[in-house]
């Protein structure tokens, strides 16, 4: 994106939310461990591979979340079905008591 047209830089400082910190912690655990199933270059590729409309719409850590899920599925760490089932399970849990 270097060199593309864009408007003024929005300098408002917005603190990371708790779940952003968790995504960061998990991603860094993976990319700093050479034996883990995801390296930082795969994470970057997964972010670039997002559909452009999603890339623009999503927040920074949302992109990480999507990329990490895509790479780990690709690597066979879990299947898309497992991921979908776990998301449904957690969503139900959040509806009952809220995220922990």
């Amino acid at each position, binding site marked *: 994106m*270097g*060199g593309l047209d864009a408007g003024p830089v929005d300098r408002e400082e917005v603190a990371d939310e708790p779940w952003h910190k968790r995504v960061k912690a998990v991603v860094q655990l993976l990319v700093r461990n050479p034996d883990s199933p995801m*390296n930082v*270059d*795969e994470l*970057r*590729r997964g972010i*670039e591979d997002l559909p452009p409309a999603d890339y623009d719409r999503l927040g920074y850590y949302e992109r990480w979340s999507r990329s990490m899920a895509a790479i780990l599925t690709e*690597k066979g760490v879990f299947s898309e079905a497992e991921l979908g089932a776990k998301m449904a399970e957690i969503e139900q849990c959040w509806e009952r008591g809220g995220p922990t």
Partner: protein
Amino acid sequence: MNRYRNGDTVVVRAHFPPGHARAPYYTRGHAGEVVRITGPFPNAEERAYGRDGDREPLYRVRFRQRDLWPNYPGSARDTLVVDIYEHWLEPGSRQ
């Protein structure tokens, strides 16, 4: 061993492969000067697809901003430095 040395003029390949590429678009086809040699690092474009990646030198290449952008609005002194893997570089001469 390293193909280039500090002070060499290099040109970033004007190549637009599909997939994950590490040389920024705006540098491709432009000449710059090697200012620091680092690495070797595993080729990140290979690692991005889960392969190990051959280790290769990573060059810090300095460009004159006026060479990169037509109508660059700043000073003629202004420069930009990018880290570029060896396989993206060709020997070059400055205009």
